[in-house]
């Protein structure tokens, strides 16, 4: 599949679209965790397949990671955002396994948290800071321009540092906050992975849209790359130039990044 394709493929035969179902990336198994109230788990699985990998369904209540090579914690409203977004999911049995597997250096399990998944990762202390309500209190849904600040993480290797992408943003609790010492540490260690460009949509400190842990295997971001992977279903714009209606696929690189990283 070429990202310049403007023809709408519609939901159809994935294998004929990706054309690499027997490629080396297909051996990489990426698990997507479903919690009660997850919304974008199917989209994340589809993104993995479109990138050429194999998607594995994981259930929050299980204790078995099924020997996956990486994990995505998807967007949605797990447990209805009760208490705080991500606060209850963080104690799911599978999260214990993930926390353990994701800790321990550059060879640890790559984990990506998208939106609610990012919130869960901060509640689980895999990533610092927290998300509070948007400064303006509104639910915001729009295509958002971001700058990839760090192209060395497990999830951003297919981009170059400074490259811009356009992917959808949709949340109400999207304001990233942390104390100044933590923010300075994140900046100093190059752990700000994504930054909002063209205006701060929610009041996030220092325009931060996504961060990583020290080793770079754990990344969280508020906008949704899995909604910008397939021409016909993406944003109406791309940072790479003009695209057709819903033709933006700038998010696909996140998923190909982790697959390539794992293939070596």
């Amino acid at each position, binding site marked *: 599949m070429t990202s310049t394709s403007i023809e709408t493929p519609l939901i159809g035969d994935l294998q004929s679209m990706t054309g690499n179902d027997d490629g080396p990336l297909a051996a990489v198994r990426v698990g997507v965790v479903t919690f009660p109230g997850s919304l974008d788990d199917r989209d994340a699985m589809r993104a993995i397949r479109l990138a050429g990998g194999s998607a594995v369904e994981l259930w929050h209540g299980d204790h078995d990671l099924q020997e996956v090579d990486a994990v995505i914690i998807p967007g949605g409203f797990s447990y209805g955002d009760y208490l705080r977004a991500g606060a209850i999911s963080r104690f799911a049995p599978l999260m214990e396994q993930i926390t353990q597997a994701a800790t321990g250096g550059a060879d640890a399990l790559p984990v990506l948290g998208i939106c609610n998944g990012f919130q869960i990762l901060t509640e689980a202390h895999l990533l610092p800071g927290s998300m509070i*309500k948007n400064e303006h209190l509104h639910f915001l849904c729009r295509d958002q321009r971001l700058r990839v600040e760090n192209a060395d993480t497990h999830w951003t290797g297919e981009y170059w540092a400074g490259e811009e992408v356009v992917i959808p943003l949709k949340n109400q609790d999207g304001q990233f906050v942390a104390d100044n010492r933590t923010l300075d540490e994140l900046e100093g260690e190059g752990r700000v992975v994504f930054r909002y460009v063209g205006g701060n949509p929610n009041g996030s400190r220092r325009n931060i849209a996504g961060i990583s842990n020290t080793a770079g295997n754990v990344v969280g971001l508020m906008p949704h790359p899995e909604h910008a992977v397939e021409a016909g279903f993406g944003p109406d714009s791309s940072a790479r130039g003009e695209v057709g209606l819903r033709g933006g696929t700038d998010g696909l690189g996140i998923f190909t990044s982790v697959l390539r990283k794992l293939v070596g």
Partner: protein
Amino acid sequence: MPRIVVDVMPKPEILDPQGKAIAGALPRIGLTGFAAVRQGKRFELTVDGEITEQILEQARHAATTLLSNPVIEDVTRVEVIEEDAP
């Protein structure tokens, strides 16, 4: 049955967008005497039986691990409350 109350407030240095919205609404119903509003949470933990020091300790643990997020919130109270009159 006896209860333990846990109060959680947003940290003073964290902007409280909900409190700000409430502060903005008060003058609209004619109440102009308030300079600021901050919105917190109150939890009531009901205990089946006597509240021992051990249970109180569990409540404190719950307050700091699950009921609040220390990055953005402070636990301002963990206290046994007297039974309300029926």
